[in-house]
């Protein structure tokens, strides 16, 4: 058997629906159709009355989820694309994220955001919004990079008593495969050493983990051992694991697919600089997408986001600093 990242997401939802009667799924076309990406395929049939189509009303979708959470339910909301969550922005950042703090009533909702660039998807079906949500207090923001994490972290997301922004990368949906689903997982909030090395630490997350790993392969042929840290969760962010890695390597490159101003790479560098300043043998660097919308044409797209090649180039430069 072999299972894709997308299937893992479907399986995690099936698992959650099976195990917990409080779980339900609400989103556009998630019912009989099984979702735009088929992440809820057959779930409506398997769990009648618990997988429901919504109107094209992202604001009301999140509002409804919050109401059900107040009643003790654990809704999973599928945004058709992360980009459309901008329409639900107010309900996410002002209603869901503040509920517990204001009222002491938990708000266990999971918002699934199919996000990130794929070839030919263009400016409105490719966005990386993790930093936007992480800036707000009261939200947990998860960015699984592997099939195993897609599965186990989605199960964790549903179990968490707070609103979780679950960023599932569309680029990984079909191509990433695993032999089987995991029965154990790192806890939420723990980063993972995706590859060990001693010459440089690349800190990254989601699809960029695979670009970083490919870059590490390339650099290995040149004799460099690159350590790759997969953050897994960007809020909370596992500073300890990052700092420990930097302590070993002395060099830090942060890679993100999001836009360059602010975001995960800035946050990681700010933390490392503040906490482990003396450990660095070279200035910490970062590599992000370019500061424009995500282009449609594959040529432009490939140049807009970091790739194994540009990651390797940046890493090489930093190693030689």
């Amino acid at each position, binding site marked *: 058997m072999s299972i894709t990242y997308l299937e893992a997401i479907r399986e995690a939802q099936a698992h959650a629906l099976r195990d917990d009667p409080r779980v339900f799924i609400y989103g556009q076309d998630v019912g009989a159709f099984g979702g735009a990406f088929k992440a809820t395929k057959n779930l409506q049939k398997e769990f009648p009355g618990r997988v429901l189509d919504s*109107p094209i009303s992202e604001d*009301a979708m999140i509002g409804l989820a919050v109401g059900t959470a107040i009643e003790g339910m654990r809704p999973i909301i599928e945004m058709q694309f992360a980009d459309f969550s901008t329409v639900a922005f*107010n*309900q996410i950042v002002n*209603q869901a*994220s503040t509920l517990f703090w204001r009222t002491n*009533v938990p708000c266990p909702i999971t918002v699934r955001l199919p996000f990130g660039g794929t070839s030919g998807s263009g400016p409105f079906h490719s966005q990386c919004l993790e930093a936007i949500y992480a800036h707000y207090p009261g939200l947990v923001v998860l960015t699984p990079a592997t099939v195993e994490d897609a599965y186990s972290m989605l199960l964790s997301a549903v179990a*968490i008593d707070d609103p979780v922004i679950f960023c599932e990368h569309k680029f990984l949906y079909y191509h990433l495969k695993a032999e089987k689903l995991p029965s154990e997982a790192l806890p939420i909030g723990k980063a993972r050493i995706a590859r060990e090395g001693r010459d440089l630490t690349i800190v990254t997350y989601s699809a960029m983990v695979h670009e970083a790993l490919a870059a590490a392969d390339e650099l290995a042929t040149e004799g460099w051992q690159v350590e790759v840290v997969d953050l897994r969760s960007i*809020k909370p962010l596992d500073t300890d694991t990052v700092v420990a890695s930097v302590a070993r390597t002395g060099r830090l490159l942060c890679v993100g697919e999001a836009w360059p101003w602010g975001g995960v790479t800035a946050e990681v560098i700010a933390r490392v600089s503040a906490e482990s300043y003396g450990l660095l043998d070279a200035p910490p660097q970062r590599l992000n997408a370019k500061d424009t919308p995500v282009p449609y044409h594959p040529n432009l797209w490939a140049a807009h986001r970091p790739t194994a090649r540009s990651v390797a180039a940046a890493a090489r430069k930093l190693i030689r600093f």
Partner: protein
Amino acid sequence: MLQTVSGSHAVGETQLAAYRFMLRARLLDDKFAALYRAGKIHGGVFLGRGQEALSAAIGVSLNKSDVFAPLIRDAAGRLAFGEPIIDAVRTYLGSALGPMRGRDGNVHRGRPLEGYLPMISHLGAMVSVVNGVLFARRMKGITGIVGVACLGEGATSTGAFHESLNQAAVEKLPLVLVVANNQFAYSTPTTSQFACADLANKATGYGVESHSLDGTDFSDCVETVGSAVARARAGHGPQLVIATLLRLCGHGEHDDAGYIAPELKNSALGRDCLKGAEEFLLKHKLADAAQLAVWRSEAIREIEEAVAQAQREPAPDPYEEKWSALSSEHLNELRTEA
């Protein structure tokens, strides 16, 4: 908590209850205004003067097991739904013992687990939350309940109003959406807000039932709101209630409402529903003047006691405060900076 009076009670009883909540709300609002002028309140004060009949009518038509999402002019409905005066006072004064613990204030209060939803400021945003509570209860097999969301006519221009009313209609939820058309959204007159002849005309476009009422007319409020709530409860889906009235105060106590023309204030729209309610009770011999006076002084005493109590209570202490927004304590990032 005070007992709420359900729509099934005898008519006189409902009106009497509604009146007493109106009276208490008016006096409570007056007290907040006085505290504001005395500089004792942090931030703004928002009153429901002139809108008490509508608001109280909502409260008395609900049961404890119903859902209520009031807005800034609903002191009366809140009391009628069961909010103790002390909750309101504590929230306005920022008491650490209030339901919002000083974290949020003034009209931003509620107790979600009791079906009493605390508003966020963004207009229209509470309606879909009410939908969610109703939706969850239906999933759990709970029936016979109703959820009321209150809005001003200005809030009908928000996308949130539209998405949530449509959502309720599609799901046939027992939502009663009460729109208080008080002629102004802050300073903005209805002519700059919408172009339909009557807001009730919106109902067919959503496939929901509508009810119109004169918000200055006490018994119209009680009856029409009562029957809208009863329709929703009986399974007829969302009900849109449009009340016509005038706000008899500023948008907040900082606002002198100079933009409201005197002619409008002196028109039928400007009638004080509280006076109307008193006339109603007297006319129908539900109470006499002496009784009204007793109720008034009782209410004043209650309010003064609540204020005195809340003023003695501790303010929130930043050192005691758990500076975290997550319920999952292990996921909080509490690294100290600098």
